[in-house]
């Protein structure tokens, strides 16, 4: 006989979820509401006077070529960071999964970079690639390649992608490794006995069974590339040269906190809010269908 616990109190459930609702309201809905409200105004920095402009801030933004370019910059940056950090992490995880001796040492070492703060990661890479004093820039110069990410937009993008992806590899590695170890050995061994090569086993068994992990990491990595890479970009390029590494969230900061243009900054936050909403819906409605749980 099934036994169910029934709470008859009408208010208890509300009381129990209240703290969570309060946190969500105070830290998510209220600021978001403020951003939407502020996006309709052009205030002066000190908050002494403010002008209602309706959709004027949005008109200004979408009439600005550099703002529109920042969308494609963000797209390129996010795809590169996500793909490179996830594929590299998967490769490392597959290798680490096969190691028998000293595997815990490998794993610990591979997890380390995650503890590095984004700004510090940025500075570390900047040291190596400093056009004048960086060791890698010097090595490249020895083989005849001039490295100056202060001038070359492509090099700047490569550098911020490398620094951002490097930092995230550890995190991805951890989840991939756990995912790999959760795959039943019997399935893989059965395939091996049937004569399937490693790559065949990987693509037909391991990769599909890993898809929940991959999907989770995809969501996390895209959000990481969108928002958490701010510190890396701020320390390495400040969005330059010629805005070639100005991603949307960096522009929100630069316009709001360097330029004191709070109206435009708020409008950009709203655009970002909508964009991330759409992205999340797309991920869950279309990509999740292909995930095997």
């Amino acid at each position, binding site marked *: 006989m099934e036994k169910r616990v029934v709470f008859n109190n009408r208010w208890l459930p509300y009381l129990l979820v209240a703290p969570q609702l309060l946190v969500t309201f105070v830290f998510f809905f209220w600021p978001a509401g403020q951003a939407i409200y502020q996006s309709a105004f*052009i205030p002066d920095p000190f908050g002494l006077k403010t002008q209602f402009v309706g959709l004027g801030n949005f008109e200004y933004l979408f009439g600005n070529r550099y703002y529109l370019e920042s969308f494609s910059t963000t797209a390129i940056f996010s795809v590169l960071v996500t793909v490179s950090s996830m594929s590299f992490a998967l490769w490392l995880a597959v290798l680490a999964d096969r190691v028998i001796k000293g595997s815990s040492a490998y794993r610990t070492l591979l997890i380390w970079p995650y503890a590095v703060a984004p700004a510090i990661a940025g500075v570390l890479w900047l040291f190596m690639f400093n056009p004048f004093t960086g060791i890698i820039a010097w090595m490249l110069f020895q083989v005849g390649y001039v490295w100056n990410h202060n001038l*070359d937009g492509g090099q700047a993008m490569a550098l911020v992608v490398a620094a951002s992806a490097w930092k995230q590899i550890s995190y991805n590695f951890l989840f991939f490794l756990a995912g790999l170890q959760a795959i039943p050995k019997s399935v893989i061994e059965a395939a091996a006995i049937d004569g399937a090569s490693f790559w065949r086993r990987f693509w037909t068994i391991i990769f599909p069974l890993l898809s929940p992990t991959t999907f989770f990491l995809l969501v996390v990595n895209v959000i990481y590339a969108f928002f958490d890479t701010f510190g890396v970009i701020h320390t390495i390029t400040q969005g330059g040269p010629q805005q070639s590494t100005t991603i949307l969230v960096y522009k929100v900061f630069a*316009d709001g906190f360097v330029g004191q243009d709070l109206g435009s900054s708020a409008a950009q936050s709203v655009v970002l809010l909508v964009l991330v909403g759409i992205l999340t819906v797309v991920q869950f409605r279309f990509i999740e269908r292909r995930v095997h749980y």
Partner: protein
Amino acid sequence: MKKYIAAGLVAALMSSVAPASAATQIDFWHAFTGRLGELLDEQVSKFNASQSDYTVVATNKGNYSETLNAGIAAFRAGEQPDVLQVFEVGTATMMAAEGAIKPVYEVMADSGLPFDQSVYLAAVAGYYTTTDGQMLSLPYNSSTPVLYVNKDALKAAGLDPEMDLSTWDMVGTALDALKESGSKCPLTTAWQSWVHLENLSAYHNVPFATKENGFGGLDTELSFNGDVQVKHIDTLGQWAKDGKFIYSGRRNEGGAPFRAGECALFTESSAGYAGVKKEATFDFAIRPLPYWSDVEGAPQNTIIGGASLWVLEGQTAEEYKGVAAFFNFLSSSDIQAKWHQDTGYLPITMAAYEATKASGFYGENPGTDISIIQMTGKAPTANSKGLRLGNFDQIRGIIDEELEGVWNGAKSAKDALDSAVSRGDELLRRFEQANR
């Protein structure tokens, strides 16, 4: 338990009563760390020791942008300090904030303390003065760009280390020789927009922006795409292409390779002197910023960079009196002379300059007076008084971007400057709208 609470209450009461009889506290937020922070703290403690009515409490709030942001956020929350250090590009933002700032001339007049604006160096104070001559903020740390020369590098290229480098044509000749002798970095610069556009314009007496560079009103428009500026940027672009001018970054990243002896010539703020003197293992010299000899009236005077002290609205009359006393103390000639000699920043009064001269400092440290001579050689004109442009931090960012386009050969000088002007004008219009 009750006993402890009672004891606690008594202690709390006593501690809240005690300061009432003590000195009035003056909060001073600044952006200095390291050596400069130490020197600032030294000034503050000297002031605190010199009298007992006021205590200045200096607090570092990060870099210039962060300090300005902290001040603005504090003002919005009603917790603003009495004195805020704001960099020169924030001047227009502060000026437009009527109701948030209390002009220095007003603070001084209300205090009843003696205040004579004519003792300040016009070229320095002019940047922070209204068109009708009222001082809005107190100049604190001001510098101007000069040319640093690695004499050993010139010698190695077969040049006379004492050669004349006063014009850009002569610099060009030197760069040819340096490049030919295999120098990896004949010329580099710090603060490209400040040195090669803002100061270039003032130095050649051409406008950087209309309406007296913005002093005349918020409806100013940028105009640094004139012939002089285009010629200069075009020349630098050509030098960049030939490997004679090496771009090292937007701020003062060029300082490290110059101090390491890799770069032969370096245009940088006069305040870079302390660092070069400390680290350079080669023979160096300071020269005036070069100019184009074919421009009539050149060289005019250069303009300053750095920061000034703003007094914020909303404090008690007693605190403003303290601020006035502190400002008087900072302007005194021995404090200024020491500041000037320790940091390489300009003295803000003529008396401090004379005192430094009399002490023989310039004889022992040749070149340290060049910045002052360069700034005070001629009376400032409408084009060389300074700049007062809203959103200027962002406009500098745009200029940096466009110049980078010239240095990497993607854009011609004319296209880049035209584009910087039109993009910058958009920001000026936005600033005008926000402050209507």
